[in-house]
């Protein structure tokens, strides 16, 4: 009965009630989005690479190396020579290496030249390796393996022919259309930037550039045969060690490499550094969203408080019918809860829709994977806090109604 009364009373003031609901919806939307990004982005971030002890590239900043080799953001400033790579790979403490070579793309998806070891040794999340959803790794020179996201978006299946483009811009005018690739395998979704890669062998990268100079295609002069397909250089190398204890020794060794300037980083530590930088922004966003919510709740309180004046008579009617002042207080709290519930539902709907619309954009632009899970534990906690806060703030008009009802006059 009281809920019906509260609902109908709000309907009676539907314009101001609706504005209040929208105000709450917007602020809850902001707060929940920030919460979602905070947790899921952090989660997605930490999961991108694991089991790789060292990441080696030409001398550059730690973050730059991590971003271009793992997140496919930005560019490498220089390459590692094939000799240096061989030296590292043959070091006695090194268990395995995955060389990667970047610089080409396919319809906006970056091409990663690598070896079979990518599928044997790379791991992400809790030590999960790359698995094939369909097909398998490269068997012949012009075989390609594509990530789950790229396959889904481009609607590719095993056996399809693709042409790579030179450079990593979304649209490229120089196509490697003389050497089409065949998709030999499609990977399972990992929730990491790997999902939007196209993998080919290092030899294939060499092969398609064999008659090129300075990024320009030349007329064919020598035929591309397998024996000349040893690459000059690679972009970066992922290194797995036999023992974790050797990590810092080897890092120092590589950083002081005599033949050329190199940088070796610990991916996990650099991920942490990167997250700490973003973490400050995240804290500020959270603070702002909490303030926005507080503003909305105070606005709601004000709306209920203002309505109290014109509802003095209603309170008097309820009182003579036998409603205690506590009932009046409850009634106002119910109105507040109805407003907040409606606002939260609209916000959740908006959040769900936004995540689904912008999911691919966020993945491709920032390499962050948001799964659109609205009902995770931290989201429920955030929503519980919202209801608690609204209960506390709604006490202002509720107590005012309580006091008014004590002397609710018969006139």
């Amino acid at each position: 009965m009281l809920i019906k009364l509260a609902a109908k009373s709000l309907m009676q003031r539907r314009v101001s009630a609706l504005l209040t609901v929208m105000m709450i919806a917007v602020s809850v939307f902001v707060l929940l989005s920030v919460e979602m990004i905070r947790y899921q982005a952090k989660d997605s971030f930490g999961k991108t690479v694991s089991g790789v002890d060292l990441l080696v590239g030409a001398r550059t900043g730690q973050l730059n190396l991590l971003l271009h080799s793992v997140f496919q953001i930005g560019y490498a400033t220089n390459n590692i020579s094939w000799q240096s790579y061989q030296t590292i790979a043959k070091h006695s403490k090194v268990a395995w290496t995955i060389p990667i070579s970047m610089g080409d793309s396919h319809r906006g998806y970056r091409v990663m030249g690598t070896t079979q070891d990518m599928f044997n040794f790379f791991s992400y999340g809790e030590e999960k390796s790359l698995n094939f959803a369909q097909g398998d790794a490269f068997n012949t020179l012009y075989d390609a393996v594509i990530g789950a996201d790229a396959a889904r978006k481009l609607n590719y299946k095993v056996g399809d022919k693709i042409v790579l483009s030179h450079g990593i811009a979304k649209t490229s005018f120089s196509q490697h259309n003389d050497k089409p690739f065949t998709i030999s395998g499609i990977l399972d979704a990992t929730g990491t930037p790997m999902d939007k890669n196209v993998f080919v062998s290092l030899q294939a990268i060499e092969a398609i550039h064999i008659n090129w100079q300075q990024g320009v295609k030349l007329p064919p002069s020598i035929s591309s045969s397998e024996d000349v397909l040893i690459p000059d250089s690679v972009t970066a190398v992922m290194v797995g060690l036999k023992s974790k204890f050797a990590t810092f020794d080897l890092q120092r060794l590589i950083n002081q490499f005599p033949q050329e300037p190199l940088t070796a980083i610990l991916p996990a530590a650099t991920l942490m550094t990167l997250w700490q930088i973003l973490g400050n922004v995240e804290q500020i966003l959270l603070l702002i969203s909490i303030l926005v919510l507080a503003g909305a709740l105070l606005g709601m309180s004000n709306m209920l408080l203002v309505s109290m004046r014109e509802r003095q008579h209603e309170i008097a009617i309820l009182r003579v019918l036998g409603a205690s002042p506590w009932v009046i207080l409850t009634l106002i709290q119910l109105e507040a809860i109805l407003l907040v519930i409606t606002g939260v539902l609209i916000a959740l709907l908006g959040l769900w829709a936004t995540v689904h619309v912008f999911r691919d954009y966020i993945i491709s632009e920032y390499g962050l994977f948001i799964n659109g899970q609205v009902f995770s534990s931290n989201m429920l906690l955030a929503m519980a806090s919202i209801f608690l806060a609204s209960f506390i703030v709604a006490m202002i008009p509720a107590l005012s109604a309580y006091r008014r009802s004590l002397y609710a006059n018969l006139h």
Partner: protein
Amino acid sequence: MSAKQLETKAIALRNVIYRYPKSIAPVLHIDSWEVEHGELVFIHGLSGSGKSTLLNLLTGILVANSGDVQVLEQSIADLRSVKRDEFRAKNIGVVFQQFNLFPYLSVIENIKLAVYFSGIGHDVFQERCQELFSCLNLDLALMESRADMLSVGQQQRVAIARALINRPKLLIVDEPTSALDNEAKHGFMTMLVRLAKESQTTLIFVSHDETLMPFFSQQVSMSDLNSTREKDVN
């Protein structure tokens, strides 16, 4: 407080003084006043004469600063706040001057509000509703309409139906006819008095309109009842 003697009256007031919070001068001071069970009482007086304070004391919304207010053989001051509200819900019906109903609720929802606080069963409610509607000459088809779609006269009759749905032993009616024309007023009074007599309800009727006096067995002037002016001004 403990030495009070319960009286077998519908209303018994002894040395009652009420002053509003933060005010020194009392607005109401009644030495003694009694109403028998089933009596029909007409109270008249100017505005500001303490009428509404008296009604608030009788319903237990306000509690006297001193003295004893007994309603239906129950001393109001002996009841805790929530019990007073419960007592009012079950035993006292009130009709205001106007705007008795929640305009945005239906007629039946308005009446159900009274039942919600007194807690009578659904079957009893249905039965009494039909009974009251026929007594009050109200069309049952109005039940589902919004209260603000009714005429003023219909609204006042719905208010009476709501006030009587819990079979109160005391019915307090405050200026109910001010919005009605003369003819409607007469019909309304006849109906009200008949209903009160039939259900042996004690009726407290407050009005400026002294032409209504003949309907009642006791006539009280607030200026006689309330002695604040003579005693408490200094």
